[in-house]
């Protein structure tokens, strides 16, 4: 199993009670809540944690992109990735991912990823996402064309990485007379592409196609949904005429390890509940703007993802542990929960969110240490 130490970089100094008066911590939460000096300290802590993950033996460290939200402070994740490259030697750097439909010229993403790949001498993992629904509000991009823009931007980026330039690209959304990437990516034929997703059948079928075979990461979902989507990927691969390997299946989840189950639950409670009840919630109008997924997927997502869009329901850590959206407990309990999913799906990539919500630095670091010492070795 491959382990990614993943970070969202939430804004922990947020006044949670005052922020609750707004529709969401996304899009409409006034940025007067953000204090740049406190924000600078947050970046320091979080970068230190990710750098520490290399020492602890993680295979990769991961960041991602979110806009106009206290949930995550990385509207430009490649800037963070660039800083991490300078402070690490061998660990892979996973940007999970860049939101392709949200840009007006996807070549910018192709160029930046190529730069990171060259700067790191081939340590980049390039994640492609569509951005979450709220980001269609914050960027103004029309969600009705989200899938089209994603596929077209993907085709353009991969072609720019692999086809000698200059060439012309003629799409419906993106038209470029000259595509001629300088620099080209370091890895051959290009950096590995991973697809993190809340899950939709369309994305699974697309990612698993034989000319792509992109690893598919299910994020923030109850265990039943993780299993469902992993097996959906396996079935889609079968339908494409091959057997998917475990290295094509990933699971991203908040994880907390302490000496005992009870201690872990106590330590993680405030962090987990602030993540799910303060940083993440948004009404369906923001989470799933029309067109973001097919009408059928939208109905399915509403049923399958009680942890997302749970507005204004409050979720407890116990509920989230029980439905398997999070993994919290002693090293043995955490190993057992992860093994249980692996037995059902054979997945081989674990994206561990080891700092979440308000979880303070000292607990995040101890969590990382225990996870690296007591959980990872036995799962490898």
């Amino acid at each position: 199993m491959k382990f990614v130490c993943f970070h969202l970089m939430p804004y922990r100094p947020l006044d949670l009670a005052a922020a609750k008066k707004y529709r969401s911590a996304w899009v409409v939460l006034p940025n007067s809540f953000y204090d740049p000096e406190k924000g600078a300290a947050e970046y320091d802590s979080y970068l230190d944690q990710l750098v520490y993950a290399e020492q602890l033996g993680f295979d990769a460290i991961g960041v991602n992109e979110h806009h106009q939200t206290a949930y995550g402070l990385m509207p430009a994740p490649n800037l963070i990735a660039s800083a991490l490259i300078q402070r690490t030697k061998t660990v892979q750097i996973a940007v999970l991912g860049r939101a392709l439909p949200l840009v007006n010229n996807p070549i910018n993403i192709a160029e930046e990823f190529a730069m990171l790949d060259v700067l790191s001498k081939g340590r980049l993992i390039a994640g492609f996402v569509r951005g979450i629904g709220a980001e269609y509000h914050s960027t103004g991009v029309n969600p009705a064309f989200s899938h089209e823009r994603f596929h077209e931007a993907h085709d353009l980026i991969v072609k720019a990485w692999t086809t000698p330039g200059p060439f012309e690209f003629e799409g419906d959304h993106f038209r470029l007379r000259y595509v001629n990437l300088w620099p080209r990516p370091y890895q051959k034929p290009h950096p590995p592409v991973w697809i993190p997703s809340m899950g939709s059948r369309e994305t699974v079928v697309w990612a698993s196609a034989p000319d792509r075979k992109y690893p598919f990461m299910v994020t923030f979902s109850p265990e039943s949904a993780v299993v469902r989507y992993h097996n959906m990927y396996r079935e889609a691969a079968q339908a494409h005429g091959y057997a998917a390997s475990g290295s094509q299946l990933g699971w991203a989840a908040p994880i907390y390890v302490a000496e005992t189950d009870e201690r872990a639950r106590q330590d993680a409670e405030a962090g987990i509940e602030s993540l799910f009840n303060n940083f993440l919630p948004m009404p369906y109008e923001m989470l799933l703007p029309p067109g973001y997924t097919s009408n059928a997927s939208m109905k399915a997502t509403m049923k399958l993802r009680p942890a997302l869009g749970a507005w204004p329901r409050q979720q407890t850590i116990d509920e989230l542990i029980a439905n398997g959206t999070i993994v919290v407990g002693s090293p043995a309990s955490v190993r057992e929960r992860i093994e249980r999913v692996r037995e059902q799906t054979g997945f081989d990539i674990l994206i561990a969110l080891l700092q979440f919500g308000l979880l303070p630095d000292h607990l995040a670091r101890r969590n990382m240490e225990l996870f690296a010492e007591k959980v990872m070795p036995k799962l490898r």
Partner: protein
Amino acid sequence: MTEEADRLVTRGVSVRVRYAGAGPPALFLHGARGWPAWLPFFARLSQHYALTVPEHPGFGGSNDPPWLRDIADLAMYYLDVLDQNFSAPVHVIGHSLGGWTAAEAAVRNSGRIASLTLIAPAGIRIKGIPPGDNFIWSPEEAARATFYDQSLAEARLKETPASEADVDIELQNKLAAVKFGWAPRWLNPNLEKWLHRITVPAQIIWGREDGLLPSAYAKLWREHLPSAKVSIIEACGHSPHIEYAEAVGDEVLAFLAGVRA
């Protein structure tokens, strides 16, 4: 006379449609919420006109042709509808998205249009006076911003989809609304500069307390359509033809009678 749903096929695109009344032809273009139920306003118009109320392509139970991408496509589609389904120029009445569509069609070609009635039309806006954001509103906020009479909002909130098919229609309507109205919100930045192309008689009707498209926009329409009759309905929200069906019906009928005289 029929009020039953029928199909209107234009260049291979089939949409739901209702017809009622006899007389000169009139066409009602609905707003972004979707094809309305048969309204008292329609009954009033159909006493004097042969009224056609289609559902826009992309909405509800109509075809969603792949070429339908933006408001310009919808406007061109209706120019085809006018050419192919009517033998005489048509009185076009549009609400909100429908008013916007009518204006977009009229700037391109008014030849098949007898008159234009725009009820709280989208399409142009005054900088510094933003429209409400119906895409971020909860159902309750949307209903409350739509009506001045809050009992109408409360009645709408009590409506529940009768079937899974109705849920699908609602999702499809929302998708169509996003296609036309998301970015920039309910605006075609290029429309305003061509409004002088509209030379047919026009009237503008707006609810003073419109919570979605501010009634202040009526002034901008008047600037570009100086001969248009502008009526601001007091104590009225975004749907004057629903909140004041009789008064607005009379207003429209009087205007249309003047056009014919």
